[in-house]
């Protein structure tokens, strides 16, 4: 480094490097300038100066200098290395890798560059390259521990676990017998546990167990040692020993569900789907009776039997479980029991059971068969449970009766209002739900959860401005709305994006969805620091687990929702492009020329003014933030806060494809992914990709009405294509010919016939009939009346519920709304649509969409203010002041946050 300089300057150059490493940038800059005074063209100095400036937030100068430096000294590995570091700081990892490779061509054995390269390869999952680089590092410096570990991990990641074991064993072979010294015991123990987990992963559980026993004294994490041992014994089928060990673990922590599972497995009493024979149930019951005696304070031991018991035994156990929790007043009781509602018959039993408790409490003040009086709150919690029970079963009327009774009993419990708000949401009255949630919020202004719940309800009711104001009450001062972005508050961004999408504000919607996408990119970035840190700290199992988590990161539900939302926005943009300049010109062309000129001038002036104002604002905010923090760290202001630029794109489908690719890669088992893929690719005329979507849809669920829609639409389109001429068309044709027989639905029948047989198969289901009707209209446009009749003839069956009072109908609110839209916009039969609306208003009394008689859309006046229907019709601002508490809260905010 700096070899071509005379001694004095060479020393200065070393100073630059040192200053850079110790973050004394100012000093480094001075030294660089001193050298450059004498040697203005010295490449390495120019590069280092650039790198230093990069750390001082002078990006453009930095790139200029680094590039100039490289140009002046192409043969310097320092210049290439610096260029790579610059790219790395901007997260341009591919470019950075190229630079490092060039640097290594000049200096192949440079350890620092190799190490930097290996980090990037791990980050980019260039696993073969990672193995290679790690091997080079080990060859160069074999007496460093970290290089052995790094090489082993590289092989493991590259799916070669047994090789990784070999390397770790070779590494152990280099150690003395008395290893490790006292201060490295934890690290060494972690390495051993990592090796054991590798052995198990490679299918050698015996060797793993043997190794575990052999190294017992060297493994520091004793709990993990026991857990591994128990799991390995289980895997090896040594059940008796396993059972003993799991019982030991249970004695240490009787609330760990995994220990119970392990114990059941050892006893041969475990089934994945929760189905057991009568004999097994008896044995399980006995097991848990003994365990419950042993661990009387454990709640797991009481809760687990509810999963496997049935009928009367279930009733008995459930009552025994529920009673004390109602007495104690545990608000989460319903959530705790919620999974049982998917077990056949248990929902009915639970309903009957709690109703019986309610009756007894009302008549005697105590539980049935008990002489003891319960405190009054027991009745309230019982009603609270029943409300949620009826809500879960779709009996919204009953649910509301119960919750109102509870509220009357004790009007001060916030949970009651939250649940009432949730019931109303399910029943279809989003506005009233939001108002109630706001009422709940006002009962405890310091509760962030209630605040968030309220914000979510407001967004569901499309009250975005109000929601924003409410959400901001819990963000830090100053930053306000941006703070939600900085905190990666994704539920908020998603709900807000969905709301904007419903309201047709695509720019703002995209802004929110893409923000979520950005968060995920940031999370991917965040792993970078761990590549070096974890290898050094030997937290290998956690490290590999973290990498695997990162590999699946984009299959997370939030990302999926954001990507789907963004794609929907782009589809809408494509289907109805912006009313852009041409339309404005149209409006203007109607004016006389003199006025036109004036108007144009006016517009221009207004624009200029707005621009200036914005600039002043930015400066002001910079100034204030400067004054506050006392540092020059200025946050860049978002130049496009409302996503106006996001919708002014040339090719919305190309943008959609970007996110679609991520969905296809990470969520290929979701129906929604392929439905969107179909929509995008049909518009792009990519027949083969649309075919791919169809194939996946058939694989996932051929009976889904949406899959059926896509299938028939696709082949309808294919049949209407002209005879192939070009090579491309001929090739596509060839593939279609080869693929078509794979669709059994179309064997030996026309599309119309296939549509009919689908109807025969799913005659009873509303959504299937709707899909068939839509296709009928697509295939034979003259049969529109028949299509409408098909929908209108659907029957909304009653489903009776044993034990409970009242009945539920089979149609779902959202489905009926979809059907209404289908009648209105696709089949364009307004009469039928309004007939449908009237009909559904009877089924869904609380739905604002259908204007049911109980909904807030119909009768704001009748509802008492306690039910939160005040100001529903008023604009958002006035309802904000009508509850009058928001302003007060602003003043209070500093107190409790």
């Amino acid at each position, binding site marked *: 480094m700096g070899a071509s300089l005379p001694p004095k300057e060479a020393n200065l150059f070393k100073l630059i490097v040192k200053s850079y490493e*110790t*973050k*004394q*940038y*100012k*000093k480094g800059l001075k030294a660089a300038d001193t050298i450059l005074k004498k040697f203005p063209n010295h490449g390495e100095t120019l590069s280092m100066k650039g790198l230093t400036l990069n750390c001082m937030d002078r990006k453009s100068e930095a790139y200029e200098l680094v590039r100039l430096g490289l140009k002046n000294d192409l043969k310097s590995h320092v210049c290439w290395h610096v260029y790579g570091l610059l790219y790395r700081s901007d997260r341009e990892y591919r470019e950075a890798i190229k630079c490092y490779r060039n640097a290594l061509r000049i200096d192949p054995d440079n350890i620092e560059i190799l190490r930097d390269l290996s980090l990037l390869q791990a980050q980019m999952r260039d696993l073969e390259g990672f193995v290679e680089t790690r091997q080079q590092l*080990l*060859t160069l410096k*074999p*007496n*460093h*521990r*970290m290089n052995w570990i790094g090489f082993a991990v590289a092989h493991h990641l590259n799916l070669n676990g047994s090789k990784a074991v*070999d*390397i770790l064993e*070779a*590494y152990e*072979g*280099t*150690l*003395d017998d008395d290893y490790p010294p006292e201060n*490295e015991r934890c690290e060494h123990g972690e390495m051993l546990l990592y090796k054991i987990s590798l052995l198990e992963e490679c299918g050698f559980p015996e060797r793993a167990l043997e190794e575990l026993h052999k190294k017992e004294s060297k493994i520091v994490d004793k709990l993990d040692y026991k857990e591994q041992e128990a799991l390995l014994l289980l895997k090896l089928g040594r059940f008796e020993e396993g059972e003993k060990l799991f019982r030991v673990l249970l004695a240490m922590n009787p609330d760990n569900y995994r220990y119970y599972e392990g114990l059941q497995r050892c006893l041969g009493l475990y089934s994945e789907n929760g189905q057991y024979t009568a004999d097994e149930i008896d044995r399980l019951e006995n097991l848990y009776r003994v365990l419950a005696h042993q661990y009387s304070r454990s709640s797991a031991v009481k809760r687990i039997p509810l999963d496997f018991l049935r009928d009367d035994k279930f009733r008995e156990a459930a009552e025994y479980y529920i009673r004390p929790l109602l007495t104690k007043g545990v608000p989460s009781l319903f959530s705790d029991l919620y999974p049982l509602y998917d077990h056949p018959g248990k929902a009915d039993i639970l309903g009957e059971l709690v109703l019986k408790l309610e009756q007894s409490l009302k008549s005697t003040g105590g539980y049935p068969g008990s002489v003891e009086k319960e405190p009054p709150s027991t009745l309230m919690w019982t009603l609270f449970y029943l409300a949620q029970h009826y809500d879960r079963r779709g009996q919204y009327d009953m649910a509301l009766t119960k919750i109102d009774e509870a509220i009357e009993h004790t009007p001060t419990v916030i949970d009651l209002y939250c649940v009432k708000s949730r019931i109303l949401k399910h029943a279809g009255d989003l506005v009233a739900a939001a108002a109630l949630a706001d009422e709940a919020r006002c009962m405890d202004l310091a509760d962030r959860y209630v605040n968030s719940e309220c914000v979510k309800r407001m967004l569901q009711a499309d009250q975005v401005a109000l929601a924003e104001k409410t959400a901001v009450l819990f963000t830090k001062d100053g930053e306000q709305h941006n703070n939600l972005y900085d905190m990666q508050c994704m539920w908020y961004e998603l709900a807000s994006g969905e709301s904007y999408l419903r309201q047709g504000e695509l720019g703002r919607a995209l802004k929110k969805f893409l923000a979520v996408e950005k968060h995920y990119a940031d999370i991917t970035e965040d792993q970078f620091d761990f590549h070096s*840190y974890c290898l*050094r*700290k030997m937290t290998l199992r956690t490290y590999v687990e973290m990498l695997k988590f990162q590999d699946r990161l984009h299959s997370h539900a939030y990302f999926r929702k954001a990507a789907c939302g963004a794609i929907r926005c782009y589809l809408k943009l494509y289907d109805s492009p912006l009313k852009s300049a041409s339309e404005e010109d149209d409006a203007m062309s109607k004016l006389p020329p003199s006025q036109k000129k004036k108007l144009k001038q006016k517009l221009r002036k207004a624009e200029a003014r707005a621009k200036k104002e914005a600039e002043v604002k930015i400066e002001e905010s910079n100034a204030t933030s400067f004054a506050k923090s*006392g*540092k*020059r760290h200025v946050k860049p202001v978002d130049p496009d806060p409302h996503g106006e630029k996001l919708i002014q794109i040339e090719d919305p489908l190309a943008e959609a*494809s970007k996110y679609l*690719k991520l969905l296809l890669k990470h969520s290929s088992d979701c129906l929604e992914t392929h439905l969107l893929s179909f929509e995008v690719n049909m518009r792009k005329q*990519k*027949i*083969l*990709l649309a*075919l*791919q979507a169809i*194939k996946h849809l058939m694989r996932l669920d051929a009976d889904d009405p949406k899959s059926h829609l896509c299938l028939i639409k696709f082949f309808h389109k294919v049949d209407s294509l002209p005879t192939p001429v070009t*090579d*491309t068309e001929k*090739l*596509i044709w*060839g*593939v279609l010919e*080869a*693929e078509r027989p794979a669709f059994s639905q179309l064997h030996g029948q026309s599309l119309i016939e296939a549509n009919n047989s689908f109807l025969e198969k799913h005659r009873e289901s509303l959504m299937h009939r709707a899909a068939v009707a839509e296709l009928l209209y697509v295939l034979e446009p003259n049969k529109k009346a028949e299509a409408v009749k098909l929908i209108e003839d659907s029957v909304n069956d009653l489903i009776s519920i044993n034990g409970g009072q009242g009945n539920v109908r089979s149609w779902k609110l959202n489905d009926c709304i979809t059907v209404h839209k289908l009648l209105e916009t696709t089949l364009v039969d307004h009469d039928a649509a309004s007939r449908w609306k009237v009909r559904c208003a009877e089924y869904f009394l609380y739905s604002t969409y259908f204007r049911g008689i109980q909904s807030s859309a119909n009768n704001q006046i009748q509802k008492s203010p306690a039910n939160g229907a005040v100001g529903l019709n008023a604009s958002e601002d006035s309802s904000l002041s009508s509850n009058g508490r928001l302003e007060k809260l602003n003043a209070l905010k500093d107190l409790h946050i």
Partner: protein
Amino acid sequence: MEAGDEALEMVDSKDLQQQSKALDKLTDHVEDRQLDSSRVQTAMASIYASKEADLQAMRMREKELAAVKINAADIDIIANELEVDKKVAERTLREHKGDAVAAIRHLLN
């Protein structure tokens, strides 16, 4: 103003130095212990022995694939219609002995 700036700068760099020190402490940067180098040598040798054979097999497969005759136009069509990288298109085509329909059907799955 100048002086103020300077002072600020001083605070800044001191701040940064402290931060950097704190970070070093946190990440606990220690030089690795040196291992016994004679044992290291034997360990290294045992690891590298098996690597050659794998490489050989891989090279053979590459050679085989490179010999397959393919239609260059097909590569473009596949890359364009299925929106895949040209390298992927070419490789799949070679793996299917130049049969474009078979290659596409493979990529569709």
